[in-house]
């Protein structure tokens, strides 16, 4: 769904490609393009404004000191800011509560609450092995209760009957009692669509929230929403304690601006996305993947150029020589390599530029995130010179000392050593090819546990 934004952004970035420096002037034009791109993608104006401001500041500030080309800097900054706005981690339903975990669905009319209730029930039942009950507190829309009953039957979860003559709070409370009695793990409460400005209706859902005290209150929003996404998200998050967002109808060709707006305004993670009308069409939302896809397929060329510029030439040569001559690759070398990586703007920003990287399993990606690079560096710097040169010395008590010294755990130390060992093997494999080539190779596949 983000395709068009991608095209736009890369076009706007093309414009400043050939230029030598980032200045107030040339960045202005490029940022104007970025602004139009975001607006055409239906990102809400206030969000666009603050986004552009952040990008401008960062692009003109520290980044310009590096010797990167302006276009590269801007790509990098825009992308990092996108990631920042969308959030970095995938978050699911919070089960840290006394069962039944209550999930309250809220949103505008026709956003997809009832459908998402069915999908989520199926998801939790099948993937998380939960015993799920659903109930409709929509006593207004014609046949809303029947609609939920039908989807509940389709996905095979318990439907708690409700009636249009009851009031939503009573329905919620009664269902909660029943869910407790029946030892259900989850109770999902569907509600009527409502306008954020409808005072009476907002009051109603507030008292429903107060009485059933849900662990999750999910704001359901249509991905095709325009500027109003910001208003509505603000009003719902002011009125209710939201814990997350579900973005629906992502199977259309909307450019996804609503995702940026809602995330930015509510500060709450987008937890799931609806990708179709069928009950299986619900997926966990991966903000990191989406952010990098906004900028299109990885720009390998610029990555390589960046690496060439940033990597300390002497260090790299020293390393290459070492590998070539089969000299031992020590933890000291590993350390200097990690430091260089950090210099280049962190692992994840580099990784995201490589094609195919966004499809990596999360497990692999997790090993590569910048936090773990930092942790690895901390571990190494707590070692003595001797330990760095002869890592095989590091056993039980040394591990404990290093862990304590670096504020990490023994597991972290072991993990680092494991990664170092794999790295060493890999260095042998790539012997003579040098670091550049290795980086390129890594674009295709990532050996397990490697920090590349």
């Amino acid at each position, binding site marked *: 769904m983000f395709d068009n934004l991608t095209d736009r952004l890369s076009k706007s970035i093309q414009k400043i490609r050939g230029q030598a420096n980032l200045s107030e002037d040339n960045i202005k034009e490029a940022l104007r393009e970025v602004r139009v791109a975001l607006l*055409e993608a239906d990102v809400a*104006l206030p969000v666009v404004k603050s986004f552009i401001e952040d990008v401008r500041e960062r692009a003109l500030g520290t980044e310009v000191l590096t010797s990167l080309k302006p276009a590269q800097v801007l790509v990098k900054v825009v992308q990092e800011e996108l990631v920042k706005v969308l959030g970095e981690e995938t978050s699911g339903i919070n089960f840290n509560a006394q069962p039944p975990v209550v999930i309250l669905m809220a949103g505008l009319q026709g956003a997809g609450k009832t459908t998402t209730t069915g999908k989520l029930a199926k998801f939790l039942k099948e993937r998380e092995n939960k015993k799920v009950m659903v109930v409709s507190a929509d006593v207004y*829309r014609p*046949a809303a209760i029947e*609609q939920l009953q039908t989807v509940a039957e389709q996905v095979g979860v318990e439907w708690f009957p409700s009636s249009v003559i009851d009031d939503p709070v009573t329905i919620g409370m009664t269902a909660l009692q029943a869910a407790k009695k029946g030892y259900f793990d989850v109770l999902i409460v569907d509600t009527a669509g409502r306008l954020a400005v409808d005072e009476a209706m907002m009051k109603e859902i507030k008292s429903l929230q107060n009485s059933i005290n849900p662990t999750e209150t999910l704001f359901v929003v249509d991905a095709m929403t325009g500027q109003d996404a910001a208003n*509505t998200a603000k009003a719902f998050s002011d009125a209710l304690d939201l814990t997350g967002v579900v973005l629906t109808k992502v199977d259309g060709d909307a450019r996804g601006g609503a995702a940026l707006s809602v995330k930015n305004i509510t500060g709450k993670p987008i937890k799931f996305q609806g990708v179709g009308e069928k009950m299986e069409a619900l997926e966990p939302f991966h903000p990191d993947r989406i952010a990098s896809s906004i900028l299109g397929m990885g720009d390998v060329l610029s990555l390589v150029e960046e690496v060439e510029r940033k990597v300390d030439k002497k260090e790299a040569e020293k390393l290459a020589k070492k590998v070539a001559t089969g000299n031992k690759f020590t933890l000291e070398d590993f350390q200097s390599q990690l430091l260089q990586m950090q210099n280049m703007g962190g692992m994840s920003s580099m990784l995201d530029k490589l094609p195919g990287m966004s499809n990596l399993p999360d497990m692999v990606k997790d090993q590569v995130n910048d936090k773990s690079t930092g942790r690895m560096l901390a571990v190494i710097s707590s070692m003595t010179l001797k330990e760095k040169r002869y890592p095989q010395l590091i056993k039980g008590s040394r591990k404990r000392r290093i862990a304590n010294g670096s504020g990490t755990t023994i597991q972290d130390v072991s993990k680092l050593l494991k990664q170092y060992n794999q790295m060493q093997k890999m260095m042998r494999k790539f012997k003579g090819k040098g670091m550049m080539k290795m980086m390129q190779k890594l674009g295709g596949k990532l050996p397990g546990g490697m920090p590349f």
Partner: protein
Amino acid sequence: MINFFKKKNKNKTDKDKLKTDAVTEQVTSDADADAAASKPASQPAHDAGVMNQEIPIDAVDPKQTTPAAEPAEVEIVVPPELLAQGVEPHQYQLSQQLSKTNDNFGKKMKQMLSLKKQIDEDLFEELETTLLMADVGATATMEVIEKVRKSLKRRNLSDSDAVFDALKAQLTELAQVVEQPLIIDESKQPFVILVVGVNGVGKTTTIAKLARKYKSMGKKVMLAAGDTFRAAAVEQLKTWGEREDIPVMAQKTGADSASVIFDAMTSAKAHNMDVLIADTAGRLHTQANLMQELEKISRVIQKNDDTAPHETLIVIDGGTGQNAISQVREFNKANALSGVVITKLDGTPKGGVLFNLAAEFGIPVRFIGVGEKSTDLKSYKAAEFVDAIID
């Protein structure tokens, strides 16, 4: 206050409530304009709760506090100041319904215009903001602003009132192109209206509204439950039929949509119906197979009456952004569209994507939806629509 626009609470009669509230009508003041203008753009300007708190009477704008009347059911009370300015009740009513909450931009602009007598870049930026926030879209907004600049230059005008007038003229020109009411051709028996659109935009509800409207005009109306896919879609339309006392032709969920509508046409003919309105399942315009299904519906309908459907209405959610353009484009490819309905304009969105639609497709906009009840339908009026955006 707000429950005037949306009356989900069935137990209260809105009429009664309107009367009491109308008495508390307030007068405008500059103090309020200041307060509203200083609100950040991302906030819904009109916090409905505000009205229930103690607020000095002279600090409240009538626009925010006077309830909008319900169409045809209640008398519309226009604040005296506005009446003096020649504001018609129906104009007032619409701008109430369209703008009741987030009209801080309009207000901001007015205030700004009254402060600045000289045109400067800030002024144009404010105009731009107003249009962008109303979903007019970046490209169209820049075009409109450019035209405004040119027209001012041509006429050598330089005060802010002229800017406002020029902007209004530009927008009205665009909006007027598509102001063509739907006329039911009585020679068609029945006159078949096919209602299409993406998921959840308000097709079924709009059908109930249209049915009520034509019935109240003395026509014999029948509905066809052509959404045979979504859970309880048939029941939803049937419930509306019962409420409005209008016959609904339906088969089971899972039945072939085209044949449901075909059969309904046959039945409508047999029962001398004037109007047959057919519901269809919501579908995203990106789903090629579903769009083909829609083409098939038209073909099958034509086997029954080769001039049908006599009106193909696309329903657009007023909160939709620039995506509405590709919706109209794709649906128009599958089934030539003859009319547009924009719904949910009782909420905070302004529906500014209409200008893009008007410019690109020129398909007549027939109605707007302003609530969830069957009475919440209005004929589209360009002038009112523009006023709701920039006033």
